[in-house]
């Protein structure tokens, strides 16, 4: 099977978010970047498991500038066979999706994997866009997948429950927790990653239909009001009269 895993670079989960003085972009000073956890822990690892079970190849794809290569190399160290970086720095999800679809449409991938969302924009948009652009079924929030030939049985998370479905390849899938278990690259993987191909593809030109105008931090919480642990009637009164939530 020919498998494609689309990966993003995001600030580390422990990053303290701050912006440049005009609030137009993230202040990247001191920010550690990682591969988006959903892409790395679940999407990539499930693709590797499928390849190990049935043969085939795993390609990782990133849309971004050369500085993303460190994150891409980590994907190769975890076990992907090859990597492609589309050399673009798009400002909108639709532009990213069009870059990916432009590359993928002639390649005949059986499954295109994404993480369920990136931890910076939390949009879940690009995977659905790519599915539409490639005219493929899209299975979002997949937490379990079994293959039988070219047919997949997938469980996906829905509000307050789980849906089980069946779909034939090719399809686009977005990975939630449970789809696989995180793998830590070992020294051999890291050494081998240096020799694996990382192909840089020139970007196509698309418009950005959406632009980020500015950022702001959420309003600071006021001082916490401490309640006497013996007096829970007081907490209930405050929740009712002051916070008006009960």
């Amino acid at each position, binding site marked *: 099977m020919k498998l494609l895993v689309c990966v993003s670079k995001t600030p580390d989960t422990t990053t303290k978010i701050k912006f440049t003085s005009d609030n137009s972009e993230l202040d990247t000073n001191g920010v550690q970047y990682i591969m988006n956890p959903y892409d790395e822990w679940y999407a990539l690892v499930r693709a590797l498991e499928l390849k190990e079970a049935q043969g085939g190849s795993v390609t990782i794809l990133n849309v971004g500038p050369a500085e993303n290569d460190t994150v891409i190399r980590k994907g190769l160290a975890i076990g992907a066979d090859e990597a492609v970086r589309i050399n673009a720095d798009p400002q909108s999800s639709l532009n990213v999706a069009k870059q990916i679809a432009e590359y993928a449409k002639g390649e005949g991938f059986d499954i295109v994997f994404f993480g369920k969302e990136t*931890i910076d924009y939390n949009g879940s948009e690009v995977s659905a866009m790519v599915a539409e652009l490639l005219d493929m079924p899209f299975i979002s929030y997949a937490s379990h997948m079994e293959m039988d030939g070219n047919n997949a049985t997938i469980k996906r*998370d829905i509000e307050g429950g789980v849906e089980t479905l069946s779909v034939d390849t090719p399809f686009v899938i977005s990975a939630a927790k449970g789809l696989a278990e995180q793998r830590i690259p070992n020294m051999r993987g890291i050494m081998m990653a240096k020799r694996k191909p990382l192909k840089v593809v020139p970007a196509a030109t698309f418009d950005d239909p959406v632009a980020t105008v500015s950022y702001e931090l959420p309003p600071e919480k006021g001082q916490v009001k401490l309640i006497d642990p013996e007096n829970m009637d007081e907490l209930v009164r405050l929740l009712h009269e002051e916070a008006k939530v009960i």
Partner: protein
Amino acid sequence: MVLVFAETQKGKLKKAAFEAVTYGYRTAQALGSECVALVIGAAEDAGQLGKYGASKVYQVEDPALEKFDSQTYTRAIAGAAKELDAKVLVLSHSTTGKSLLGRLAARLDAGSVPGVNAVPTTDGGFKVRKPVFSGKAIAEMEIKTDVKVLSLMGNAIQPEVVGDNVGVEALSVPVEAGRITVKDVERVEGTVPLPEAELVVSAGRGMKGPENWGIIEELAEVLGATTACSRPVADTGWRPHHEHVGQTGIAIRPNLYIAAGISGAIQHLAGVNNSKTIVVINKDPDAPFFKAADYGVVGDLFEVVPRLTEALKKFKAEN
């Protein structure tokens, strides 16, 4: 025109549908335009959307749309948007809405913003706000295309009655059979799903073991709340994964979030800090969660939680 896709479940409108129509109505007012709603499949109460500001409710029914498939739904909704010449499409930011938003944007070649939490401003461009960095910041984004697609964060606005019920009109759009076969849908019955819950009671490692969860369940029951947990608790299997809230779990924004025995790691806060009111119960006065809380109780949760349950029972009996 603003077109709202109103989600249903088991033939009835979801709470998110009323929120989305209220949002669509206010957006239409900002644009000097009209708000209409679209339901797919049976919805006995669809006419009620009129009360929240839909001037018309359209209904698309087709056997191919009985089970959810983002591809067939996208074709139907995009078809309706074209048929009605809708300029703004509003979805709910649910698992269904999130599966559709990107597809619709790609199909209509439209700019899209997922998870908006405020009505657009329209002076100097169409601008919306959404939480980013897992709730650690808010971004203002401008959509520059003629057609725009948005999904509304759950519990971001309260549904508001502004009119009366309206009639439901059948709409015919091209529908194709999907390539996904839904075999089974299992739902946890009897509780409000976490993303939709207004009241949430959550607990962490301070509970010491899964056998102690009775006091949390009792508090949730008295309050009518949904239970949640922190990541370590879900990872060790003390509680099911679908209860895990936080950056790598479910992001929630209830009116009330009560956290017992959770220290408040930055990744946990990222998933819950949009809650309107946060109550933290922890025996460690230095727990970082107190900095993000509105009300704090420094004490042993095994004493405080049952005491709070009793106080609530008393309050419920009196009110």
